[in-house]
């Protein structure tokens, strides 16, 4: 479902729409699979019969003759011994539907296949360099013949990662006699034909000792990738290597699958597999604690993954890693965990819930970022980076970093407001909460490169060794001798002596960054080093629940993240609030509703509900924790996706504490809650 089968190119939109109505398509219905569990059964119809012949990256493991687009497996410790040592074993299943990114700006792009064989693309994309790379790879056209231009992007949330509709407009342009072709999706088309976030099914078996120590976990995750796995193979891998959540589990066996179905096709989505599996893990933690009769916050703290302990992939958590225990404690304190709930009207109850979270960027080991710093003749600075601006504001923090390093006020640093693959320094993708960390390090290196060049010139002019010079406040001077100095503006384009002699020239600094000692994971055991950094956090809610209608209102939302260092605290708070609301919206309302034949029933914002202003909790408390990571820029870690990972589990945990009813399927619509409460009665 959702696959374009014909395209019309016309002089204007009106003509194109009229022409589309004239197309008649005859379909022969074939047997379909519309559920991941069904798709995995032997004898299920195969969505891709020729799966074995498809080219793919060696990081992925499709299983020919099945609907499995990627199978990730992980083995840590000894699962049999782990369960032998367990005194209580708890097993549960969890589920969530497919959802839309609902970016404010839908997909839009222009392709121009030019008569001379060069290709130009203007696109609302998160990752212009990846658009260029995949297009080059698939059409066999070398990179230097493809130019991708990206202005500010009106929202992405992962939906504009990788490549999307760009190849279509490029090829249509060729067909249209080398004229540029533009495609812009309406919201309805976006729902029906744009990639979405995959659905998810999980089964977790946890073994614990009576005193509340997790000994073993057997984990099964299956992502509903839809009919084309595309980017969707990758969240399954990411969920696989982070599978336990932020807890130390000595013995783990995990299998994480991306599974083809005939649903609409999936791609990256903010959280990238983590929103999905943390729903399962954080509900499971609550249920296990309840089975043991222990406090769920204490249970989480007891099993917290602290520096020195090993992650599921066998990585020893670095000594300057973030602290999950501090995040959980901060949230518990702010929502007054353990204190009596506030009173409510008759028929309604109030309750609290907490859930923790973690995530590392899901990136290949060689994912790179780079930066160029150019000084203008007047001493102002142009910073050029490949990270796109999709509303997250990373470039503001990068400008601050450049200003700090270069000794100029931030107002004198301008970040080039567009990305153009011919001019912009390379960035792998704008995804994974990686760009402040990676572009940040690249900017620091570019600034230091520029400063080195400035010192070279200043050393000659000031007749002083470089290491005796200092750059600050738009000046360079001899340490201890401010009177022996120069204005930066007089050096950065070459220093001109009174007689016209000139030394040096325009300053251009450059820098790059790639992760240190990241590795591919072992194909059998999943062991290795996937993580540039782990960001930890926790979220908590206070809710009011109407027991007769299932209506739930989040009164207070608290989130704490160990960001290492908040380069721009306002942006961090903005992310925490925005991400919290998105998380709440996804948890309570958002879902693709299909009929029995896999057709979407709610392709509009009337019936695909998202949170509006009136749905935002009255009280939102963001908490920033700063345990710096020594290889991050000024100690910073990424936080963007983290902000939206665990609100649904916190709400469901609160519902559990209010009623004793466990809800393990999303979304937590009022009707679904009412049905769950009814089942118990």
């Amino acid at each position: 479902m959702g696959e374009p089968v014909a395209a019309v190119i016309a002089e204007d939109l009106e003509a194109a729409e009229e022409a589309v109505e004239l197309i008649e398509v005859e379909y022969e219905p074939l047997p379909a699979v519309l559920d991941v569990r069904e798709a995995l059964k032997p004898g299920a119809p195969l969505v891709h019969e020729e799966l074995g012949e498809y080219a793919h990256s060696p990081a992925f493991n499709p299983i020919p003759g099945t609907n499995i687009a990627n199978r990730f497996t992980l083995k840590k410790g000894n699962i049999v011994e782990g369960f032998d040592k367990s005194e209580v074993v708890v097993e549960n299943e969890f589920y969530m539907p497919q959802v839309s990114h609902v970016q404010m700006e839908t997909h839009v792009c222009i392709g121009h296949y030019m008569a001379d064989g060069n290709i130009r693309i203007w696109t609302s994309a998160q990752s212009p360099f990846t658009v260029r790379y995949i297009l080059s790879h698939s059409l066999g056209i070398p990179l230097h013949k493809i130019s991708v231009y990206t202005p500010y992007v009106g929202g992405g949330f992962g939906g504009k990662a990788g490549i999307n509709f760009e190849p279509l407009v490029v090829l249509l342009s060729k067909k249209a006699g080398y004229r540029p072709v533009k495609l812009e999706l309406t919201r309805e088309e976006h729902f029906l034909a744009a990639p979405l976030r995959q659905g998810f099914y999980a089964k977790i078996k946890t073994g614990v000792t009576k005193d509340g120590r997790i000994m073993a976990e057997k984990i099964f995750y299956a992502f509903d990738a839809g009919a084309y796995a595309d980017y969707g193979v990758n969240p399954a891998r990411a969920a696989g290597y982070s599978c336990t959540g932020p807890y130390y589990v000595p013995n783990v066996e995990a299998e994480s699958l991306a599974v083809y179905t005939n649903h609409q096709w999936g791609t990256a989505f903010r959280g990238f597999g983590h929103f999905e599996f943390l729903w399962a893990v954080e509900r499971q933690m609550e249920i296990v604690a309840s089975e043991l009769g222990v406090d769920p916050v204490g249970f989480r703290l007891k099993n917290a993954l602290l520096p020195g302990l090993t992650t599921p992939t066998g990585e020893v958590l670095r000594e300057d890693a973030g602290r999950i225990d501090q995040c959980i404690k901060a949230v518990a304190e702010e929502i007054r965990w353990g204190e009596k709930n506030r009173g409510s009207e008759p028929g309604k109850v109030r309750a609290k819930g907490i859930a923790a979270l973690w995530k590392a960027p899901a990136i290949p080991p060689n994912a790179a970022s780079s930066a160029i710093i150019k000084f203008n003749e007047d001493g102002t600075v142009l910073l050029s980076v490949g990270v796109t601006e999709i509303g997250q504001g990373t470039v503001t923090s990068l400008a601050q970093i450049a200003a700090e390093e270069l000794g100029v006020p931030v107002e004198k640093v301008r970040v080039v407001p567009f990305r153009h693959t011919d001019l912009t320094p390379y960035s792998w993708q704008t995804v994974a909460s990686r760009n402040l960390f990676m572009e940040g390090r690249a900017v620091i290196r570019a600034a230091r490169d520029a400063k080195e060049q400035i010192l070279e010139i200043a050393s000659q002019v000031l007749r002083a060794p470089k290491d005796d010079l200092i750059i600050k406040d738009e000046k360079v001077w001899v340490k201890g001798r401010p009177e022996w100095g120069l204005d930066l503006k007089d050096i950065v384009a070459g220093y001109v002596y009174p007689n016209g002699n000139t030394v040096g020239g325009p300053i251009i600094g450059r820098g790059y960054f790639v992760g240190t000692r990241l590795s591919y994971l072992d194909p059998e055991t999943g062991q290795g080093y996937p993580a540039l950094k782990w960001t930890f956090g926790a979220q908590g809610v206070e809710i009011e629940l109407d027991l007769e209608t299932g209506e739930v209102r989040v009164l207070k939302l608290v989130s704490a993240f160990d960001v290492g260092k908040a380069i721009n605290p306002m942006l961090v708070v903005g992310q925490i609030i925005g991400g919290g609301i998105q998380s709440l919206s996804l948890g309570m309302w958002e879902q693709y509703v299909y009929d029995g034949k896999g057709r979407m029933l709610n392709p509009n914002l009337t019936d695909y509900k998202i949170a509006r202003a009136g749905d935002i909790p009255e009280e939102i408390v963001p908490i920033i924790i700063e345990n710096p990571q020594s290889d991050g820029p000024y100690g910073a870690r990424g936080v963007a996706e983290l902000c939206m990972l665990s609100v649904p589990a916190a709400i469901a945990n609160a519902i559990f504490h209010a009623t004793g009813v466990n809800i393990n399927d999303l979304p937590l619509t009022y009707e679904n809650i009412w049905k769950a409460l009814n089942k118990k009665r």
Partner: protein
Amino acid sequence: MLPKFEYYSPTSLSEALELLEKYGEDARIIAGGTDLLVSMRDRILKPKYLIDIKKIPELRRIEYKEGVGLTIGAAVTLKDILEYPNVGKKYRVLWDAVKTIGDMILRNRATLVGNICNASPAADSAPALLILDARARIINRNDGVGEVPLERFFVGVKKTILKPTEIVKEVFVPEPPANCYGKYVKVMRVQSEDLAVVGVGGLAYRDRGDLVVRLAYSSVAPTPIRVKEVEEVFKKKNMPTDEKIEEAVKISSEKVSPISDVRGSAEYRLNLVKVATRRLLKELVEVV
């Protein structure tokens, strides 16, 4: 994009009726356009002619006459209604209901007459208008104005008695009973703005000491409905109020016929009818 159409913007009612007589089923009246344009964009409707009535001064009138009632012209927006002082004071249940339609942006354009002419089962203004005994004043070129009680105006899902050559000129809402209390309860899928999963309008007052109660619903039947049988229950003598309420809840839940759709299952809607009716009646009884 919208399908192609010709646009007329008459400045008098007679001109509008003339056009309607001429084009009949090929024409559509447009006021706020908040329902019509959506249907046109989805290509469910493809009228060849749109007749905009917003420039007709007499249709933009909202007027309250003490002891007579409230007249709301076809081009009066929901925002105008909310800001007209006597609506909030005298017709609280109507004000409540209008306040829940769409959001502020939409209420700036949408009209009350449009809301009833669209005849959605979920029309929020309808339960209030039904229990206030509102009447639609219908006009065509040849016969002048006729008056139809709203109960007879709705025929089915998105269907009214209106003929292609007719316009609802205005809605008339008579003077409500003295000291009445009314409220519209709308259960939605979210806290902010939504179509009603179930809507209940209630009105109560004392007639020489005897309690009189009226109830009407949206989103639970092919048309908005008033359940008059409930009114009989409250006329019964020697029945404790609590029992009357339970009896009314039972009758209402039997009289409605909700369907299952993407907005809610029939079973959930039925539950909401019971819960909302019970809560609303308790409040009405307590207040009057």
